[in-house]
């Protein structure tokens, strides 16, 4: 590779050498405790899919350019120069990882793998070998943020159709204002996704609870984070923050999308509004009696898949269980569950890529868990997970039903209560 490009790569690595990165790059002793904790490794037992190996790919590059040992005595740490072959390893490391951070639970030092891989993703963007689907989606989201005024009218018109759907579901006389938009001073700004389901079901729930809410023009998902571009990630999240500030809402509620929730809740610093997941809001409504649901109406065995970004990485464990235990007579936990739950294999933007074979194989851990739980309905609270669970369901012919929590609640809501 030409020197100029290497220089550019070095600058990019340097830009990511923040405090956590310094700890994570230096603290690892390669004890190997994380070796088999990745779902991808469970499905495809190759060292390339072990967390420690992914980190080493980055670490060896870092040592080559930033550490005396790597510069003067590369043998010591097997420091490697960047070349095309190494860049392929970098790709393999970055985009076989879903960012679920399960390995972090088994690391005695608490090394945050996706944080290390943010260097890998940055190098791939500069090398123009980042997954083009993700680059495209991130660019689209940025463009949408820049020229939202052009799209507002078209979007509002389709939302009108959805209002009719909500009206039918709730048996209301009028569809007027069932999905409010641009409502200043509302309690809640709800941020959905592109799909109708991500708006209709929450709208049913909000209206039943008589919430003072408004719908965001933007989609919550952050492809800037998936592709690993910190600037686009910031921009995409800031679109929503700006909207929330302009409307002066008290709370921003994020759709069932783990990444979007974690970014807004934990990655953006202090914000002048509360950030909640729709799952937490549903729990709040049911607990406070603001909505009523048909308790025990689901007779089949139900299990819950903890989305990694919602559970382990954001701490929302009990709320979905509270709701599901009310709805389902036979609720079953997967083993392991909660913070040690296996990732389904869909996170990190992987579901958007043309990699179905890999995702079916790396979803083996999840498949085994679902089979062991003996459930016929698998509920989750993340669009990514739902997509991947469907891939697993079809790939292994499991014949289970995959549902989102908000869909389940909206279907079982008691109207006119």
């Amino acid at each position, binding site marked *: 590779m030409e020197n100029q490009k290497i220089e550019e790569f070095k600058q990019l690595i340097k830009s990511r050498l923040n405090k956590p990165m310094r700890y994570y790059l230096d603290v690892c002793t390669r004890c190997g405790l994380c070796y088999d904790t990745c779902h991808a490794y469970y499905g495809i037992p190759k060292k390339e899919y072990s967390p420690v190996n992914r980190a080493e790919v980055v670490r060896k590059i870092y040592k080559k350019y930033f550490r005396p040992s790597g510069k003067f005595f590369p043998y010591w740490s097997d420091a490697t120069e960047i070349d095309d072959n190494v860049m392929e390893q970098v790709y393999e490391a970055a985009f076989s990882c879903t960012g679920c951070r399960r390995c972090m639970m088994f690391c005695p030092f608490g090394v945050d793998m996706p944080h290390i891989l943010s260097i890998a993703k940055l190098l791939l963007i500069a090398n123009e070998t980042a997954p083009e689907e993700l680059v495209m989606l991130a660019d689209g989201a940025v463009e949408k943020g820049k*020229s939202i005024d052009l799209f507002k009218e078209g979007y509002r018109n389709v939302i009108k159709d959805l209002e009719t759907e909500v009206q039918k579901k709730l048996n209301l006389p009028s569809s007027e204002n069932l999905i409010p938009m641009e409502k200043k001073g509302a309690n809640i700004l709800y941020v959905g996704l592109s799909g109708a389901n991500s708006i209709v079901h929450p709208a049913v729930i909000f209206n039943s609870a008589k919430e003072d809410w408004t719908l965001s023009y933007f989609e919550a998902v952050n492809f800037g984070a998936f592709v690993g571009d910190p600037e686009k990630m910031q921009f995409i999240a800031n679109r929503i923050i700006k909207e929330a500030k302009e409307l002066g809402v008290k709370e921003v509620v994020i759709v069932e999308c783990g990444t979007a929730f974690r970014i807004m809740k934990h990655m953006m610093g202090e914000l002048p509004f509360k950030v909640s997941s729709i799952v937490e809001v549903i729990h709040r409504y049911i607990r406070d009696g603001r909505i009523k649901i048909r308790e025990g109406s689901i007779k089949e065995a139900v299990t819950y898949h903890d989305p990694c970004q919602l559970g382990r990485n954001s701490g929302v464990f009990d709320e979905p269980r509270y709701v599901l235990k009310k709805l389902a007579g036979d609720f079953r936990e997967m083993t392991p569950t909660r913070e040690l739950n296996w990732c389904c294999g869909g996170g990190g933007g992987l579901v958007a890529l043309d990699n179905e074979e890999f995702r079916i194989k790396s979803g083996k851990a999840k498949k085994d868990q679902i089979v062991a739980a003996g459930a016929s309905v698998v509920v989750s609270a993340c669009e990514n997970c739902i997509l991947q669970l469907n891939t697993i369901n079809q790939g292994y012919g499991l014949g289970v039903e995959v549902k989102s929590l908000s869909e389940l609640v909206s279907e079982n809501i008691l109207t006119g209560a």
Partner: protein
Amino acid sequence: MSTIQVDVNMDLKGLACPLPVVKVSQQIKKMTVGQILMAETTDPGAHADFPAWAKTSGNEIIETEREGNVSKFYIKKLK
């Protein structure tokens, strides 16, 4: 009904986020410049996502139709 001569039809109804845009983008890469792709989707978000995508990827949405909750996007490959 539109009278536009369509080269490829895609049914993206009910697909979850972000697949519609991804599928369209993958499909349009296989086509030749000037050809037209018609994509049907039920995603309300598509009304912002598709134009934004078209703008960044250098394609053109020549027409949009709506029938009930199904939207049809006619996309012309420009480069």
